[in-house]
């Protein structure tokens, strides 16, 4: 066991190994590692951002839902109002119609009554004339006394 040329060979190989490591191994692998670190950091940051955006979106959705509910309530109220109005309108229309028909029917009845009264009056006047004819046994000129008779009829 003595120092010999092996030492020099080993030294040269030592430098060669370090040089190759420095040139072809270390930067490549470390570069990949650092790149991955960067990627992971970016991914985590993106995750945080996405979470924040999700929160914001959720808040927005909540406000939208509240607004929609309010609007729906308003629409419902309006619809109710319209419906009530329509109902009232229909009711009043129906009442008016009823009044109208009632009035018409009453008028009709009145008319009928009047007509019947007129007939009755005429018949009564005819009867009266006939009675008077018989009473006075003398024909009364119907035409002459029509005026008089009409007045009589009107009096009845």
């Amino acid at each position, binding site marked *: *066991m*003595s*120092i*010999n*040329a*092996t*030492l*020099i*060979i*080993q*030294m040269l*190989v*030592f*430098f*060669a*190994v*370090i040089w*190759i*490591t*420095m040139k*072809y*191994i*270390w*930067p*490549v*692998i*470390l*570069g*990949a*590692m650092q*790149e*991955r670190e960067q*990627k992971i950091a970016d991914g985590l940051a993106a995750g945080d951002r996405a979470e924040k955006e999700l929160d914001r979106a959720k808040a927005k959705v909540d406000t939208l839902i509240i607004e929609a509910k309010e609007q729906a309530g308003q629409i419902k109220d309006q619809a109710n109002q319209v419906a009530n109005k329509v109902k009232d309108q229909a009711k009043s229309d129906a009442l008016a119609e009823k009044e109208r028909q009632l009035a018409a029917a009453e008028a009709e009845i009145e008319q009928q009554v009047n007509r019947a009264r007129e007939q009755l009056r005429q018949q009564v006047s005819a009867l009266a004339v006939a009675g008077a004819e018989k009473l006075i046994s003398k024909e009364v000129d119907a035409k002459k006394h029509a005026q008089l008779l009409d007045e009589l009829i009107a009096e009845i």
Partner: protein
Amino acid sequence: MASGESGGSAGDYISHHLVNNTQELVEGSSFWTINADSVFYTILLAVIYLLFFRSVAKKATSGVPSKTQNFVEMILGFVNTQVNDVFTGSSKLVAPMALSIFIWVWLMNFMDLMPIDLIPWLGTLMGIEYMKIVPSTDLNIVFGMSFGVMLLVFYYSFTVKKPTILGYLREFVTHPFAAKGWLGKILLAGPNLFLNLVETLAKPVSLSLRLFGNMYAGELIFILIAVLTVNYTFSDFFTAGGIMVSVMQFILAFVWAVFHILIITLQAYIFMMLSVVYMNMAHETHEDH
């Protein structure tokens, strides 16, 4: 863990396992000799490390990583954290250096956990008489790496800090003891130089010997455990004593191997961290005195 060769004594077996397979580059020169086994395994492990990590790097994605990529990223992240904790400057060199040292030294140490005679036995089949398969039990390998680290420290001092050479040398004689007057400076120059030289030399020596000592001792204990049945013939394993010794050997080797997993990782980690610390010391200036 029975040895392939029978008949040799325990001493022969041990010394056989502590000898490198040397090849002389220059005839008769003890320095221009290489430990062929150490060089082969250290380069093999370096290639395994580089190919594995490079294949992961090629397929590296910043999306969902595969299990292999995940594993590699775990190691890388660990090393990166350690380096960032210790090293205060910014350098493209230090972290890759730490990773290389950590994985490579760990792989070298891991060879210690291989069945002690398996690979050398395969080697004998190919006509290689003996080899040490754990590169980090070779002084040349550990010193090669620690000197490499020190050279990187010097390189870093000069390129990143960009001191003047004079300024760099002045640090050797003005620290750690600083004086105000010129007389004091001259008087303290000698002790300062001495201390700094010791410090500079102690760094690589302690760095490498710590690793070497741990691995060498661990290897030696594996060898000693293996020695228990070194002279057994096949039939010896089936005698009552043979079974007992074999079971004991198995338990000892198992326990030591489990413990050793901790040691090899710890030593690789320490080698890495000390290298980073030395680099950081080169980064720190002493101008605040």
